[in-house]
């Protein structure tokens, strides 16, 4: 493992150097092509990620340029890229809501169709080694076709139909040519969207300034105590890794925490429904079933591998910016960070497949609060810039 880590570190340093070089060239190129300040700053973020983040991995065949960033951002925000022009990528990955959706446990797509899983944030997605909660895709460049084509998301009938839509929009004239030297095709569509998403970086958090920057006052004593628990008694860092020079707060692995098991085996006869602020009433499951389709099953990673050992396994998310990305867990079933900490304090949901790393923690209330304070210290400094960047283009019709 140590050898692997060293090799990764060397590759990382090399990547960082190459990216810096490439970014410098891209900035010069962008200036010549009239790219705006948002594009230039986005490219610069990739070249020099904020404190706490490692170098950004970028595929060799898709170097970052300001033109690609501009095009990818426009595509990401454009509602016309769905079958009936109602859904863009940004309608579920809403910039002002942590690039996810704080208002829904799981999103809705074209014509209100139901999704099973919570919208993951785009923040720092550049570092994800696998896409989707079940890790079914390896690359941002190819991931984009999932939502574009899924009947329950953007519902385009084919890749060709998406490309035809883009070709039919006057405001895209010349943009692919400028970014890629040729017209839009499946390859460049994926590359453009991936490039923009790769620039949505947020770090230099109070934690980063404290842990990596040496600023002793950057976080509160309570948050510092929370970090001690995070890496100690609570054991969170076993999966949400913290490195010596940077931290992504994920092991890039998949685990069964019991959330998936709980969803599939729920047998409550009623659900508490909030009908006005602070006013909830029990509603019988039979009533809920009378006005809704049965929820689709969700078996986690098993759906990808057919391996029974992968039942209810889901990807470990990064915890960066986690205070911005409620609700939590792959199904959005927990509403607050306190709910999440208490969930793990209880030892998840015990069942046969529960990951052995998860066990009751015996946390005191002040320890729960300290962990929450620590998690709240993981919010990046430049979120407003990322929102302004995203909103620098229209939403398409």
């Amino acid at each position, binding site marked *: 493992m140590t050898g692997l880590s060293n090799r990764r570190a060397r590759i990382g340093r090399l990547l960082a150097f190459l990216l810096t070089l490439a970014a410098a060239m891209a900035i010069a190129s962008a200036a010549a092509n009239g790219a705006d300040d948002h594009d230039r700053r986005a490219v610069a973020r990739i070249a020099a990620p904020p404190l706490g983040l490692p170098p950004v991995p970028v595929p060799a065949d898709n170097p970052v340029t300001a033109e690609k960033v501009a095009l990818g951002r426009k595509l990401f925000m454009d509602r016309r890229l769905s079958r009936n022009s109602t859904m863009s990528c940004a309608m579920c990955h*809403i910039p002002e809501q942590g690039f996810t959706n*704080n208002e829904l446990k799981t999103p*809705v797509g074209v014509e*209100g169709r139901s999704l099973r899983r919570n919208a993951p944030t785009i923040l720092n997605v550049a570092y994800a080694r696998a896409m989707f909660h079940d890790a079914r895709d390896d690359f941002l460049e190819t991931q984009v076709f999932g939502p574009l084509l899924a009947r329950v998301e953007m519902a385009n009938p084919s890749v060709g139909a998406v490309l035809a839509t883009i070709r039919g929009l006057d405001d895209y004239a010349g943009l692919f040519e400028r970014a890629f030297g040729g017209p839009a095709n499946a390859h460049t569509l994926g590359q453009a969207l991936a490039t923009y998403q790769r620039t949505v970086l947020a770090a230099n958090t109070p934690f980063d300034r404290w842990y990596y920057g040496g600023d002793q006052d950057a976080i509160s004593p309570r948050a510092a105590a929370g970090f001690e628990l995070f890496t100690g008694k609570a054991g969170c860092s076993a999966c949400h890794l913290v490195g010596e020079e940077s931290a992504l707060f994920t092991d890039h692995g998949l685990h069964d925490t019991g959330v998936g098991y709980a969803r599939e085996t729920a047998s409550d006869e009623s659900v508490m429904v*909030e009908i*006005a602020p602070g006013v909830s009433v029990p509603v019988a499951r039979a*009533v809920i079933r009378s006005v*809704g389709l049965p929820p689709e099953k969700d078996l986690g990673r098993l759906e990808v591998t057919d391996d029974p050992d992968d039942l209810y396994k889901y990807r470990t998310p990064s915890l960066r910016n986690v205070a911005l990305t409620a609700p939590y867990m792959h199904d959005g079933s927990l509403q607050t960070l306190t709910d999440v900490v208490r969930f793990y304090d209880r030892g998840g949901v015990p069942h046969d497949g529960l990951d052995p790393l998860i066990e009751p923690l015996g946390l005191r209330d002040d320890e729960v609060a300290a962990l929450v304070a620590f998690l709240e210290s993981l919010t990046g400094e430049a979120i407003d810039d990322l929102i302004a960047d995203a909103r620098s283009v229209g939403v398409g019709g």
Partner: protein
Amino acid sequence: MRHPMSRGLLAAFVFAGAVAVTAAGPIGPARADETCQSPYLPKITGQEEFLYVWTLGMEGVGDQSDKLVTIDVRPGSATYGKVIAKVSVGGRHEAHHAGFTDDRRFFWAGGLDDSMIFIFDVHSDPSRPKLVKTIDTFVKDSGGVVGPHTFYALPGRMMITGLSNANDHGGKSALVEYTNDGLFVATHWVPDGKDMRGATGNGADGYNYDVRVLPRKNVMLSSSFTGWSNYMMDFGKMLADEAAMKRFGQTVTLWNLHTRQPRKVFTVPGAPLEIRWAWGPNHNYAFTTAALTSKLWLIYEDDAGQWQAKAVADIGDPAKIPLPVDISISSDDRHLWIDTFMDGTARLFDISDPHNPKEVYQKKIGAQLNMVSQSWDGKRLYFTSSLLANWDKQGNDNEQFLKAYTWDGKQLTHKFTVDFRKENLGRSHIMRFGARSLYSG
């Protein structure tokens, strides 16, 4: 059958200012037909002849597209109670509400999903409406408003409430004003917590639903529902989503009608939906029903001339969430029909004392029930079934109908039913009345 106010007089009424003219005067109080329309519309005082039913396309039913369905309700007609025309607009747009222009010559119908607006000519042949114009720029025109809902006639204008927005599909929204010719005029954003826009009150949420005016008091009311994500979502999924259930409107906003400036925001918890002003010349009040909390609210001007809001009655058993939906006030302000969706029941409230309404009658109409329209004389009522495509009931309870009844002051008597599934039409939603006599003089 046609209201005596000619269009010339109506125009004079408009330019003289509604406050002065409506209170009294030679042309009498400005009333509209079917009791829930804009006071600026000419009205049918006698027998309506046609029902226009704005119908949602339904997967697996007919051409699966939204359509305007015309039903003959002329007594004695060979086609009484039958579908005599239908105009499919192609595709599903979440057909919902619709309304006439102030000259009652055109019928605007909206799609809550993709914000399309379809304009039908209903005057050339009232028995066969024609689609004459489509507005596909509502979102762009309005600066990001999504979900055109209420289409409410103002002089020369169509006031449209939006339910959502194109940034996040949440509930922040606005009223959007067009000319009768379909030209965008202005967007009026509902006050929210960040920008009260000069209004007083607490808890403004920016949400929107219905709009109604009382010209002689120069006031306009808007209510509040929820954004695209919720109204398009599977109802069962939403009820079980704690995050989604926090995203319902809790407000009614009072506006200055003429300046379109918000004046006061009332806290009305639980998604206040339809608004109905009383008709009486001295009746300075309106009703609305909160869908989730199942309460009837009164918005009224108090003795000190201040506008107030208070809950005045429960509708059914609120603990069972009967979900009051459409309401219809009688033209004499004595009764209010309230449909409750979940139990498919029409309930009649005695509102002669508006501060103490009492339920006096109820009748189950179907497995689910949404819209109700009554004739000006209160003798005929029509009901339809669909709430929203993804909120309607599942399985056999997903009845889709138009049912016609007569009301004799004591009970509803069934006259006919049009089964919208058997007829391959779809999900029946809002109804509006037509008559040839409106255009004959």
